[in-house]
């Protein structure tokens, strides 16, 4: 397709500058997003469920609820979580902190029935590893808060807009040559060309995924503002109809049996199974219950499951992430956007698919930066200070951030039984590793730092099974390591991948390819 030269040039600039501004943040958002696909597996790997909890007795959950209400009426009335996904039910409530916000010092009290049917509690700090991965994904790891959201979330929202512009401009500049070189991966024309071809191929093939991610990230960050603006056009019409409030507070002693709640949920959708119920504010005039509903054979709209919101006393369905019937058209369309972002369709295949797409997305930003650096070096004929700076920053941020997570996993698991406050420990390890590697990258230069970083990543991934063995050795009966064996297996697989990348990068840096950021003359 023919596109005017000046328009091509304009979009080339748009592509470059949006990519350079947003690329590094998006890199972190994407690879961490890939990890969130398996954050529960990673959570179970780093902090396995305590043995005494695993040895609790299988009883009808109602028995457990009744005994817990009798023993801890106050705590239970504030709200509690009931897990019924497993044969052995257990419930928990916050004995310090709460579910809202990002408190690192939350304490949970777990309650279950021991082998004699007696109520037993176990107090533990809430292990937030999965949440921290999620936080890294949503904020890029940027600190600070605005209102009820993290600063990083808003920054990533802006980055998502730049990313959309980068996508469109990337497609525009490819239009003239798209049909000729689409599937071409030209190895013989040098490494630079191969990187460019791969960058283009990944970008075009995963374009629909990227478009959905771009605008959903923006909506996740700015929905409050978008609704405010929309409200101006709605005039006197309220955007949302609030359910009528009752004045009379309810009381936990009148809580209907769990069975009745589950029956109502089943009547709402027969295909779903309730795996988790969260009861909130049970002694207030406005109590609510949130049910997590699993349906492995269909698309779900939350990060893991569908949601059903019910009144815990009247058992009315108040809202759900999967509206039923003819009035559900709009709600279901919106629900689709959520599931397209979260990758919660197609069960485990969808999960793996999104894991890969996320990594390919990260590759898109990494390769985009490197291509630009190579091109600038060729054009200038020498290494300018600004180019060198960007090269060091790119290697430092991309590899450093991944290294940060890997080191956190290994040390976090090894130190699980230590006296440290674990959630804070995770943060310290991540940010220290991240910062140290960026420093190293500026000290060693991009070429040496990238080989070193890739090797360190390989070593770190190999550390995953080693950490498992260490825990098993020091504390043989605490946990069953077999439950999370796949994390160890993939640690080894990724160690291999990083080692391969390290050797490739090293070879390239020795080939003395004319003025590339990889060439030897650049320290």
């Amino acid at each position, binding site marked *: 397709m023919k596109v*005017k030269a*000046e*328009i091509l040039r*304009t*979009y080339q*600039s*748009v592509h470059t500058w949006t990519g350079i501004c947003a690329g590094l943040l998006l890199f972190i958002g994407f690879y961490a997003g890939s990890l969130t696909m398996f954050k529960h597996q990673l959570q179970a790997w780093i902090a396995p469920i305590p043995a005494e909890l695993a040895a609790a007795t299988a009883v009808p959950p109602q028995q457990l609820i009744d005994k817990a209400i009798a023993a801890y009426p106050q705590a239970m009335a504030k709200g509690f979580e009931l897990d019924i996904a497993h044969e052995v039910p257990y419930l928990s409530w916050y004995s310090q902190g709460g579910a809202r916000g990002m408190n690192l010092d939350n304490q949970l009290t777990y309650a279950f029935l021991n082998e004699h049917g007696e109520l037993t509690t176990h107090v533990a700090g809430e292990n937030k590893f999965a949440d921290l991965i999620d936080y890294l994904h949503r904020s890029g790891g940027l600190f600070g808060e605005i209102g009820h959201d993290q600063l990083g979330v808003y920054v990533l929202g802006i980055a998502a*807009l730049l990313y*959309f*512009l980068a996508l*469109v*401009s990337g497609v525009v500049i490819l239009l003239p040559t798209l049909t000729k070189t689409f599937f071409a991966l030209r190895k013989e024309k040098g490494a630079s060309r191969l990187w460019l071809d791969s960058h283009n191929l990944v970008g075009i093939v995963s374009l629909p995924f990227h*478009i959905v991610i*771009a*605008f959903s990230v*923006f*909506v996740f960050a*700015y*929905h409050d503002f*978008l*609704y405010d*603006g*929309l409200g101006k*056009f*709605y*005039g006197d*019409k309220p*955007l*949302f109809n609030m359910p009528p409030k009752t004045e009379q507070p309810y009381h936990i002693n009148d809580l209907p049996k769990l069975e009745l709640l589950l029956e109502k949920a089943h009547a709402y959708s027969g295909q779903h199974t309730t795996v988790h119920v969260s009861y909130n504010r049970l002694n207030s005039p406005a109590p609510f219950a949130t049910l997590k509903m699993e349906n492995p054979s269909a698309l779900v709209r939350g990060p893991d499951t569908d949601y059903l919101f019910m009144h815990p006393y009247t058992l009315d369905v108040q809202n759900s992430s999967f*509206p039923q019937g003819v*009035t*559900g*058209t*709009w*709600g279901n*369309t*919106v629900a689709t*956007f959520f599931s397209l972002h979260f990758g919660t369709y197609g069960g485990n295949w969808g999960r793996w698919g999104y894991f890969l797409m996320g990594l390919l997305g990260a590759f898109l930003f990494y390769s985009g930066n490197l291509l630009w650096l190579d091109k600038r070096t060729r054009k200038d004929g020498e290494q300018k200070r600004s180019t060198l700076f960007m090269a060091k920053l790119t290697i430092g941020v991309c590899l450093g951030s991944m290294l940060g997570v890997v080191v956190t996993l290994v040390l976090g698991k090894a130190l699980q039984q230590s006296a440290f406050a674990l959630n804070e420990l995770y943060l310290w390890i991540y940010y220290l590793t991240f910062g140290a590697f960026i420093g190293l990258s500026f000290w060693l230069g991009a070429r040496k730092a990238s080989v070193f970083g890739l090797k360190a990543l390989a070593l770190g991934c190999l550390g995953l099974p080693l950490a498992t063995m260490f825990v098993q050795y020091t504390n043989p009966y605490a946990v069953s390591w077999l439950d999370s064996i796949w994390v160890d297996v993939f640690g080894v697989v990724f160690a291999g991948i990083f080692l391969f990348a390290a050797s490739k990068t090293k070879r390239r840096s020795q080939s003395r390819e004319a003025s590339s950021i990889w060439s030897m003359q650049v320290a």
Partner: protein
Amino acid sequence: METSGQVQAFQADWLSKTLAGMLLGLALAYVCIALFAWYGPGGIDAQDKVQFNMWMIAPLWFSIFSATYVFRTGKRAWLLLGIPTLALYGVFFLLRSMA
């Protein structure tokens, strides 16, 4: 607008084109969604439609934004986005005032 028939040379006009895409693009996206909200399928009262409407603002805005660099000059970008924006706001408030 150019009436001489002579095609004006392409100018980068980064700032004015970017501002046109950012501001007018958002204004245009909002009024399109507003018209859709009141007069599109289901009308204003359809259940959960407000969520759909909110969601659609971003893709519409982003699309307009990304297209603004096609205009030959920044001035043309402001004119060609500004006129339909004003017209649609006029239509919207006229329709609403008649209701």
